[in-house]
């Protein structure tokens, strides 16, 4: 499966949303403004990314400034897990 589809599936798992919601996720979708992730969901996503890809999301977020955090997209996550 492509990375976008995998990430959309993980996002669906942590939010409890349905397949239609996951199908509408694009690389441009922003975690905060578009997907409306709440902090507990971001924490759950971090766990899922660590398990699936061995990626440390909190360490990645710690290096971002406020504007980058607000504008963080699914595409940014895709770059992180394929880096």
């Amino acid at each position, binding site marked *: 499966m492509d990375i976008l589809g995998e990430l959309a599936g993980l996002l669906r798992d942590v939010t409890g*949303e349905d397949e239609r919601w996951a199908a509408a996720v694009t690389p441009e979708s922003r975690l*905060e403004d578009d997907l409306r992730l709440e*902090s507990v969901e971001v924490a759950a996503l971090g766990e899922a990314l660590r398990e699936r890809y061995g990626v440390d999301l909190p360490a990645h977020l710690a290096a*971002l*400034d*406020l*504007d980058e*955090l607000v504008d963080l997209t699914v595409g940014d996550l895709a770059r992180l897990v394929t880096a």
Partner: protein
Amino acid sequence: MLGDTVTVYSTGMRPYRGQRDRGLRAVRSLWEGFVLPYARFTLPAVDKAIAAFGPDVVAVDQHALAGAVAAHRHGVRWASLAPQSMELTRPFRSLPKVEGWIERGIANAGLSIADGADPRFSPHLVLAFTTPALTGRHDFPAHYALVGPALGTRTTAPDFPWDALDGPRRVVLVTMGTLAEDVARDFYPRVTGALRALAGRVRAVVAAPPGAVPDPPPGTLVLPEVPVLRLMPRLSAVVCHAGLNTVCEALAHGVPLVVAPIKHDQPVTAAQVVAAGAGVRVRFGRSGAGELAAALTAVLDEPGYAAAAGRVRDSFAAAGGAPAAASHLEQLAARS
């Protein structure tokens, strides 16, 4: 509101437009759109007030930075008041660039204090209206006083149909805060679904404007204003947005919580409630009726939640509240 014939002169303070923002966007708009412009705007007036009144101590809300800057200018000791959870336990510790952005914003707005003190944190006294039973263990410096909530007594309370609470059903208060009415519109139908599922054993009091709560189950009281403190002894649980005031009012009475934080310090407070064992956190934007009903059932039925809320209540009672805060301010004033 004033009518067409009235000329309105701008104060120079733009209205805060971030009320609908959440998450880190809300943090950005709070500082850019409110805290910093408000501090700049009020500084001359606060400065004048201190010069005219000659106080021994200035008590400054952590988000009203002008008081700290003006007090320092006049050589007056000042105390920081922490009426919410955002500036006490460093919730952005894991996002150092966000902490740095706030510090730079304060400096760039000309609100730095000459001796290097952060205007959010008095070097003399920081009064926080919570206790470590709720904040968790932190290495608070010696000049931090955690006095618990300053509840006081309300001189006026809205009318309430007390007789309606009689009967065997457990009473639950739902209150999402005065600022949340607009954004809570899609939360109420889900919470109503949860209340309907529990209608046989729960009677709900919902603090909300008329019409905001569609089709509540029979017996539900939907009222725009509720005498929250007087109601507390009758409650078995509170569902709220995790505003620190409501959370502390509930915990001061040993009432466990279902918390659905929306923004600002609410996620911080919600995490503290969960860590203290005094409630269950749900998702304001997404938890459905089933998830909300399960959360409410848990805090009603599992005695651990009420027991943990009781431990926080005891810590609040021991911390002294408003009289303790007043003594700390008196001691600061008397220091020479």
